[in-house]
């Protein structure tokens, strides 16, 4: 399965090993998310559960263009980004189970996955709010003269509130190394994009700040990767931030309890027929980058990994009760009487 010059161009310079690994990540995210839904139904997972099913191409394509020392911060639909960054699936599932072995010791849950050792600065659940944290991280990196970038993921629904505009202005004003990645899945929770925003081509909102921006097919991880490379290079070279609008579609509800009255079954079926995971799988096989046997092996492996994460989480101790009296502050100072 040698990569010819033609296939190299077709796959944005990605070799078959990288392409196969990207498929593995997409498959892992998909299986992890479907397992989460099952565990939610079995009441092993509580609270809000926002699944990334259908949007895998965005996280995998984007994060493939980063170096390990680059930074990621994201929104509450954060499982896909965490997995694409290579966070330990045991720690992720255990976090959802509210266990001491979870990525945040069971304090954060589904919306707040984290691993600072991997420069994964966490999932944030106030829509649009974390874009400003990304600017702050970007400013810190710039002032420390580190040649690193921060990628911030958010949804189309984040682009109407004031913090979005404050962030774009501040980032462009100080030429911060921030890549803004809007995952446009066409709905702000259950409100269709035509109902929630006046300019539905989100990337055009960057025009007001004279910021480089483009709209890409986020369902194609190779297209996403290509755009990500351009954006990351731009940000890393000191030219300032970029806004990428990744077009995608969420194949499951907003959260695990969503009855999805805002869209028709036919619409969802139409998108399901173009499931990015299946399209990518088929394409890699047809183009000789992956064999059917390899694909099946990957699918078995990721299923086993996810099953093991459930087993690990089941066996793990509950969240440590020390958190009831400590940890609010890094430097606890008690009231005095």
């Amino acid at each position, binding site marked *: 399965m040698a990569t010819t010059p033609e296939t190299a161009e077709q796959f944005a310079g990605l070799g078959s090993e990288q392409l196969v690994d990207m498929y593995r990540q997409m498959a892992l995210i998909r299986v992890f998310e479907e397992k989460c839904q099952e565990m939610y139904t079995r009441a092993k997972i509580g609270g809000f559960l926002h699944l990334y099913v259908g949007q895998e191409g965005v996280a995998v394509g984007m994060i493939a263009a980063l170096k390990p020392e680059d*930074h990621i911060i994201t929104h509450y639909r954060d499982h896909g980004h965490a997995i694409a960054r290579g966070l330990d699936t045991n720690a992720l599932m255990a976090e959802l189970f509210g266990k001491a072995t*979870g*990525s*945040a*010791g*069971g*304090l*954060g849950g589904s919306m*707040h996955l*984290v*691993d*600072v050792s991997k420069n994964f*600065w*966490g999932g*944030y659940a*106030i829509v649009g*709010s*974390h*874009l*400003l*944290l*990304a*600017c*702050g*991280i*970007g*400013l*810190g*990196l710039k*002032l*420390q003269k580190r040649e690193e970038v921060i990628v911030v993921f958010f949804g189309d629904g984040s682009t109407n509130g*004031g*913090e979005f505009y*404050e*962030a774009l*202005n*501040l980032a462009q*004003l100080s030429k911060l190394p921030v890549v803004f990645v809007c995952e446009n899945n066409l709905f702000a929770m259950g409100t269709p994009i035509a109902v929630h925003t006046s300019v539905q081509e989100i990337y055009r909102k960057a025009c007001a700040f004279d910021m480089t921006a483009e709209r890409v097919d986020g369902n194609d991880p190779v297209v996403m990767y290509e755009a990500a490379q351009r954006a990351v290079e731009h940000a890393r070279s000191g030219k300032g931030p970029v806004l990428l609008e990744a077009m995608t579609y969420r194949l499951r509800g907003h959260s695990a309890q969503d009855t999805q009255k805002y869209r028709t079954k036919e619409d969802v079926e139409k998108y399901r027929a173009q499931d990015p995971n299946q399209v990518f799988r088929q394409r890699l096989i047809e183009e000789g980058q992956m064999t059917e046997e390899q694909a099946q092996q990957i699918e078995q492996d990721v299923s086993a990994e996810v099953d093991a994460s459930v087993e690990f989480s089941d066996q793990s101790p509950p969240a440590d009760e020390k*958190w009831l009296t400590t*940890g*609010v*502050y*890094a*430097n606890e*100072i*008690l*009231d*005095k*009487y």
Partner: protein
Amino acid sequence: MAVMSVREALQQALREQLEDPRVFIIGEDIGYYGSTYGVTAGFLDDYGPERIRDAPIAEAGIVGIGVGAAMVGMRPICEIMSVNFSLLAFDQLINHAAKLHYMFGGQITCPMVLRTTNGWRNLSATHSQSFDSMFAYVPGLKVVAPSTPADMKALFKASMEDPDPVIFIEHTLMYGVKGEVPDDPYEVKIGESRVAREGKDVTIVTYSRPVHLCMDVAEKLSKEEGIECEIIDLRTIRPMDMSKALTSFRKTGRAVVVSEEWQSHGVQAEVTARLYEHGFDYLDAPIERVGFREVPFPYATNLEDQVVVTPARITEAIRKVLT
């Protein structure tokens, strides 16, 4: 000992901090304009625009940038010109700064200091408020509100050395207040109150600007009527050190709680509750409170004078607990 104003003490404190390359200041009109209250006047020339960052009028942005930069090892000083504008940054403060350490299981810290000002005078309803208790209500924030130049300087240093987010509350009517500041290095820890004046008849618990009003009232009552007030300056309102207030209350059995906030639901309500909870057996009279009258601030002087905390109202409260 040098005598200097609160403004000068803060200038010294900020300049000391700027010796650390991790420190930068971000806020509105701190550089080119020359600083609204003069605290950072001249800083832009001395430290340059990378360190003295004039911000757009975007309070969430100012605080969000500070929080993010603190996450990756900077030591930002965010300045919100007037605490009234901080309402636009509450999301960043409460949903992020206060939560990061706990919500992420101790992996992230946020060593950021937010400087802001209380204050009023013919500024009407939206420019005269204080939100001390709204900050102090939130686990994860620390809230410091000193009253003297020496405490300003030392507690600012302590706030910067603390790994947690600190709200540092100044007062527009206090920048010119003068006091002695030690020449040698000295320390004031976050969460330690002080006895500002000793006395045996009544305990006054207060902080920030009203400390000075209470001191004036106490001197007058001492001279004219022989009433001796003991004044406790809390200095920090979260964490809160009630030890000196309670020691005093056990001695006097009478207390007045004074702060520049609307009288209900504020820090003074919390202080009063703690005095009752921990000092009930020593109570000789119901505790009195003095705060803003509960209306939005009126512009007109004759009305505003009756809304704010005044020596007359403090004196009246003292007389009430003594009868």
